[in-house]
């Protein structure tokens, strides 16, 4: 299969994502500059992390008006899988493709550390290769990963099992100590109602090889690959 990796000015995890899916998992991939609009031949999209447009105005706010985003909106409607990682998650929220918004971390600090993730839903395009009892070890690297949403939308997200990952401790317990940024309900990753778009703050591409400290991120990309190859 062929991944499209979207690149905005200020994107910084594009090469890590290419390493994760191509060098590491043997899939084809292609960088797609934000001014382009052609997504033909692309089976799945990765919107990587970084500081698109310098995080000016709000994180993800200026990226959501780039030409590629209109193509991504159509692509999402057609049902193709899209994963937004870190700044990619922020962009998807700003674009209205995912609900909610990401604001400053609760303690105002940039957090770059390993976190544990509980798999809240392993029946998705992005988590089918995971065991619901497994705790994923994947790093976060962000200053604005505090996921917030109004109570009504939060209920909808929870009731439709659209929360895919939550921050937890090493035993899988969801508590405030294991929450690196203050996200509501310890939410680390959510998907849209259709189930073909995932946004997550942790970086699976940085946990794709045991030499890096974990290869749990592979489970997420492998789930997407298996879905496309079905």
């Amino acid at each position, binding site marked *: 299969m062929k991944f499209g990796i979207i690149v905005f000015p200020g994107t910084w995890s594009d090469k890590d994502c290419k390493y994760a899916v191509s060098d590491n998992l043997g899939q084809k991939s292609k960088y797609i500059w934000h001014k382009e609009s052609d997504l033909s031949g692309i089976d799945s999209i990765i919107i990587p992390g970084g500081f698109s447009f310098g995080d000016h*105005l*709000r994180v993800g*706010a200026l990226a959501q*008006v780039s030409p590629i985003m209109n193509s991504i909106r159509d692509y999402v409607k057609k049902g193709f899988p899209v994963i937004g990682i870190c700044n990619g998650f922020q962009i998807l*929220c*700003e674009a209205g493709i995912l*609900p*909610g*918004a990401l*604001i*400053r*971390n*609760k*303690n*105002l600090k940039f957090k770059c550390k390993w976190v544990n993730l509980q798999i809240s839903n392993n029946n998705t395009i992005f988590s089918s290769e995971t065991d619901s009892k497994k705790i994923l070890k994947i790093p976060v690297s962000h200053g604005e990963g*505090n996921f*917030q*949403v*109004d*109570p009504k939308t939060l209920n909808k997200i929870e009731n439709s099992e659209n929360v895919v990952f939550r921050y937890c401790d090493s035993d899988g317990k969801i508590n405030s100590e294991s929450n690196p940024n*203050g996200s509501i309900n310890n939410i680390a990753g959510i998907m849209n109602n259709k189930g073909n778009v995932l946004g997550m703050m942790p970086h699976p591409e940085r946990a794709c090889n045991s030499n890096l400290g974990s290869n749990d991120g592979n489970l997420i990309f492998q789930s997407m690959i298996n879905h496309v190859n079905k």
Partner: protein
Amino acid sequence: MIFLSKIYVKYKSGISDPESINILSALDKLGFNNAKNLSTGKFFELTIESKDLKSAKNEIKEICNQLLTNPVIEQYSFDVYEFNQ
């Protein structure tokens, strides 16, 4: 006609703003115990060309809704003045 708009953006009530909480806590440490609530936000000055005040206001609202604010977490207000260069 040219209009000058002053646009104020802050978090909606119910959104916990960690920056405001920390500033308020710092005020408390300095002894300003009478300070009870504080909001942080953004301020924009925008000049805009429009045929009249009503059209200018409508366009500013659109600008706020589409880009300057995120309606999920933020609210805004603005003042508009006729701008004499």
